[in-house]
C-alpha cells in the first residue's frame, strides 16, 4: 500500500457549505475528482494542493498531514 497523506478537504468543504461541484469548478477538476481527493485515493499535485489551500484561505498544513488529524472535541 502507498504512504498515506491525510486530508481535511471534506471537513472544510462541509464547514463552508461548498458543494463538490462548486469546489471542482473553482479548481478546474472534475467533480468526481473531489471525491477521490477527499478519500485520499488520489493526492493533489503540489500546485493543486496550494490552489486548494488558497481557495480555503488556510495553510496547506491545515488541509494535509502525514499523520491522522486529531478528532474534533477529543
Amino acid at each position, binding site marked *: 500500500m502507498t504512504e498515506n497523506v491525510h486530508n481535511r478537504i471534506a471537513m472544510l468543504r462541509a464547514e463552508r457549505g461548498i458543494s463538490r461541484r462548486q469546489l471542482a469548478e473553482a479548481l478546474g477538476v*472534475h467533480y468526481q475528482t473531489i471525491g477521490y481527493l477527499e478519500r485520499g485515493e488520489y493526492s493533489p499535485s503540489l500546485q493543486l494542493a496550494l490552489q486548494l489551500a488558497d481557495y480555503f484561505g488556510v495553510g496547506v498544513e491545515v488541509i494535509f498531514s502525514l499523520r491522522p488529524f486529531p478528532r474534533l472535541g477529543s
Partner: protein
Amino acid sequence: MIDSTTTGNAPPAIRTRGLQMSYGTNRVLRGIDLEIARGEVVVLLGPNGAGKTTTVEILEGFRHPSAGSVEVLGADPADAGHAWRARVGIVLQSWRDHAKWRVRELLEYLGGFYVPYSGAVARPWPIDELLAAVGLADDADTPIGKLSGGRRRRLDVASGLIGRPELLFLDEPTAGFDPQARRDFHDLLASLSDLETTILMTTHDLDEAEKVASRILLLVDGGIIADGSPDTLRRQDFGKAEVRWFDGEQHLVHPTDDPVAFLRGLLTDPEATIEELEVRRNSLEDVYLKAVER
C-alpha cells in the same frame, strides 16, 4: 454536418424548415431547420420540456406544427398514407398491453399489417430473425406479462422493427436495460444503420448518446443549440484537462490548461516513476450540462 459527397443526390430522410409549435401562448418550438440524411443515427438530447417529444411527434405525423414545413421520407407526415407509414417504425416510451399474448403472437399480429407493403424491402421482418436480432429468441412463447422490464422493452423495440422501417423513431429505448442488454442494443442499432436505416432517438443517457450517435442535436427551449458528432461537440468545450498518474508511491492528479506542456515536463525526468498515466478531458455529459445551464 451534411456533406453532399456522402449523401449524394438522395433526398434526406427528414427535412424541416422553420418548424414552430405553440400550445396556446406557450411557444414550444421556435423555428427548427433540420436535415437528416439517410443512414444517419441521430440522437436528440435536451432537458425535460425542451421540445423533444413535440418535435418527434410532428415528424411522426401525430401533431401538426403551428408553422413551417416538414418532409419525412419525401412526404408530409400529417397527410401521408399507409404506404408511407409502413416505412416508418416507432418505439414509444412504453406500452403495457397484451399481457396474456405470447411474444410471437403479438409480433405475428403486428407483422400482418405490413404484408401488403412488401416490395423491394421484404415485409414483415421474419419473426425468428427479428427475435434473434433483439435478443428475445428464447422468449418467443413467453406470455408478455411475464417478461422482465428489460425484456419487455426489447419487445417494444421488436414491435417498432417488425415492418423493417427505413426510418426508425426511438423514444428512450434502453430505459431499464442492464449494461449487457444496452450493449446488445447498441450493436443492433449499428447493424440497422449498416442497412441504411435512418434512426432518430431520444435519450437522457449521455454516455449512450456518445456511443451510438453519428450526430447529436441538442434541443434547449425549443431551439437547436448544438449540432454535430459527439466528438465535435466535446471538442467545442474541452475545458481543463486532468492529468493523473502513479509515481510509485501515490496516485496524483493535476489540472492543467496545457496538458502537452505539463506532460513534456513530467516525462523528461529520467528518474521519475510514471505509471498509469491518464489525461482526462470533459465528457459529453460535462459539455451538455454546461450548455443546458446557460
